[in-house]
């Protein structure tokens, strides 16, 4: 692989910010239409009542909470992976981190909207927040939903900072290259970055702190999401394994989402030189690992239930093993275990196409996994007389489709405003690897950066 020169790197990575093709507008238009349809569906739901969904008694949660858990899971792509890679100094992370961290922030935004979308009275969502109100009552701190509210806001704040910090030098780069009103915006966003040694030092410190802090937050977020299910006494929800099971699943789906996002970016913005088969190979291996971890959890979960042989749990067990959800269940296993295993464990298939195929099935499979955790248990909860069944309506399907479109749209917009690959980290990496001659490191403001002593060993 021929390493790109600094100028080429600047140009190629900043190209999406400068030029926009008609294809971009077309795609954005289509995605925007889907998002608007979803918003319209939500407004209709608020107006007519949550009854326009397929929810009923006893299946009080359905697509919305599935979407919620799914998107919160996806959000683990970024921050968690990027933090781990940063802390372990995995050199190949450099072109990947920004892209991953952005997924986190958007997936969280989308995921966090679902607890509001699914409310019976969404206009009162703020009652979930602790604030001194005229009602004189605090929210119930016993409720896992409240823990959710705290965990998600914390994670969202943390991830946003984590995304923002390493973007500052790149904003400065864009600022220096941009003109007119854009320059003003990037001027603000770059927070007066000049690349002084002090600034580098502080950035490095801040990123190190954030990487350490964000890890437990990320783990806790999905653990708490899993506790929404594990705390109430619902058959096959009430499980001690749910915390790690959900975290593993989250990372699993997160990596898959990241691979897909990278492949799309690579193709759309011609970043073939930066996002290479090497990266896909590495992430593919990681995906395989998580697939096996996930498989371990699902085997553990179902074996425990089967050996426990309690009627209420077995009722739920059979509904996915032999009943109504059998096909979905085995399709989920196919998506999450068989496809990744056969594609990713064979080096020959662990290509970009291979990993992307595996990632797509994993994303589908993980959405199904959440659905199959939530709905079968509620359909067959204890007293058989009260069993019910759930079927989503067009409202739920539209809103769900809308969130996928929203994710893509947010990502597209983001890629227009922010260099989607961390330019300065890439440059740094090139220097460290020695894969590029020293002068190639000359960025737009070379004198300042080269003069920076801390620059010589960031992260070391």
């Amino acid at each position, binding site marked *: 692989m021929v390493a790109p020169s600094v100028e080429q790197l600047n140009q190629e990575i900043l190209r999406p910010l400068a030029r926009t093709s008609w294809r971009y507008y077309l795609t954005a238009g289509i995605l925007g239409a889907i998002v608007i349809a979803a918003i319209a569906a939500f407004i209709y739901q608020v107006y007519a009542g949550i*009854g326009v969904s397929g929810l009923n008694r006893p299946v009080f949660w359905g697509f919305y909470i599935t979407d919620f858990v799914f998107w919160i899971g996806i959000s683990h792509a970024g921050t968690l992976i990027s933090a781990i890679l940063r802390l372990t100094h995995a050199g190949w992370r450099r072109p990947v981190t920004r892209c991953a961290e952005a997924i986190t922030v958007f997936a969280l935004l989308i995921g966090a909207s679902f607890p509001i979308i699914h409310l019976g009275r969404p206009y009162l969502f703020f009652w979930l927040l602790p604030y001194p109100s005229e009602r004189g009552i605090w929210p119930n701190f016993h409720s896992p939903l409240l823990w959710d509210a705290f965990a998600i806001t914390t994670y969202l704040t943390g991830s946003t900072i984590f995304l923002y910090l390493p973007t500052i030098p790149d904003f400065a780069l864009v600022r220096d290259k941009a003109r007119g009103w854009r320059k003003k915006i990037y001027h603000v966003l770059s927070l007066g970055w000049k690349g002084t040694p002090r600034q580098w030092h502080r950035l490095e410190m801040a990123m190190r702190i954030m990487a350490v802090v964000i890890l437990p937050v990320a783990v806790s977020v999905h653990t708490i999401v899993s506790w929404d299910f594990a705390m109430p*006494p619902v058959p096959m929800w009430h499980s001690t394994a749910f915390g790690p099971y959900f975290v593993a699943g989250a990372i699993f789906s997160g990596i898959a989402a990241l691979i897909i996002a990278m492949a799309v970016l690579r193709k759309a913005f011609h970043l073939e030189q930066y996002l290479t088969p090497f990266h896909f190979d590495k992430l593919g291996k990681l995906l395989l690992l998580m697939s096996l971890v996930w498989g371990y959890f699902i085997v553990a979960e179902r074996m425990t239930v089967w050996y426990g042989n309690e009627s209420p749990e077995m009722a739920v067990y059979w509904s996915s093993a032999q009943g109504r959800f059998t096909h979905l269940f085995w399709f989920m296993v196919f998506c999450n275990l068989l496809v990744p295993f056969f594609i990713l464990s064979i080096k020959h298939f662990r290509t970009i196409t291979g990993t992307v195929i595996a990632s797509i099935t994993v994303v589908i499979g993980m959405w199904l996994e959440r659905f199959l955790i939530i709905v079968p248990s509620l359909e067959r909860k204890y007293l058989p*007389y009260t069993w019910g069944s759930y079927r989503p309506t067009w409202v739920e399907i539209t809103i769900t489709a809308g969130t996928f479109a929203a994710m893509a749209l947010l990502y597209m917009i983001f890629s227009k405003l922010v260099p989607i690959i961390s330019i300065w980290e890439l440059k740094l990496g090139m220097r460290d690897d020695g894969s590029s001659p020293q002068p190639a490191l000359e960025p737009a403001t070379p004198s300042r950066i080269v003069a920076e002593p801390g620059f010589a060993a960031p992260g070391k």
Partner: protein
Amino acid sequence: MKRQWGMVIDLDRCTGCEACVVACHAENNLATVGRDGAARGRTMHWMRVERYWEGEFPEVRLRFQPVLCQQCGDAPCESVCPVYATYHNPEGLNAQVYNRCIGTRYCGNACPYNARVFNFFNPVWDKPLDLQLNPDVSVRSVGIMEKCTFCIQRIKQVEIRSQESKQPIADGEIQPACVQSCPANAMVFGDLDDPKSKVSQLARSNRATRLLREVGAQPNVIYLRSVS
């Protein structure tokens, strides 16, 4: 005086007539959801009579089991509500504060008895059916959970009268609508903390059992097993 309201349901007396079901509708302003709502599993019954088949024809039997909110001593619904819309009142009842409910429906999932129902739409009463509404019970709107209250309006009425007259509440003076209607006298309501009350005497019967005891919610509805 501390009280623990509770109910005993004698399954040997219950005949499955469902008078309790309609009495509850009339007393508590339960909405009817119509054919479409019923088909989608959204009926608002606070009280239901479950039936379970046993055996095959001709050696076939049927078992009835009325189920309402069990007013659990350690209620799974209470701890999960983020806004305290459902809480434990001082007399051991699981109270539901309609105005505070934002409709997470988490309590409905947490309830092992599926005793909770949700207003998926605003209730509709074709005029003049609205005149049947009991002014002592608030009408619920869309997005709100509701469930059996042990007819708290009747409890409060008697309690206030007792406070005013300084007369203690007699055993059996308070009757929820289902208990009052039950033709076979299968249901008894009263103070479980009063060892002399009929309900606590029956609760000590060797036929006494509780529904889904293994869940550990400590229900205050006690079932007396059918003998045969």
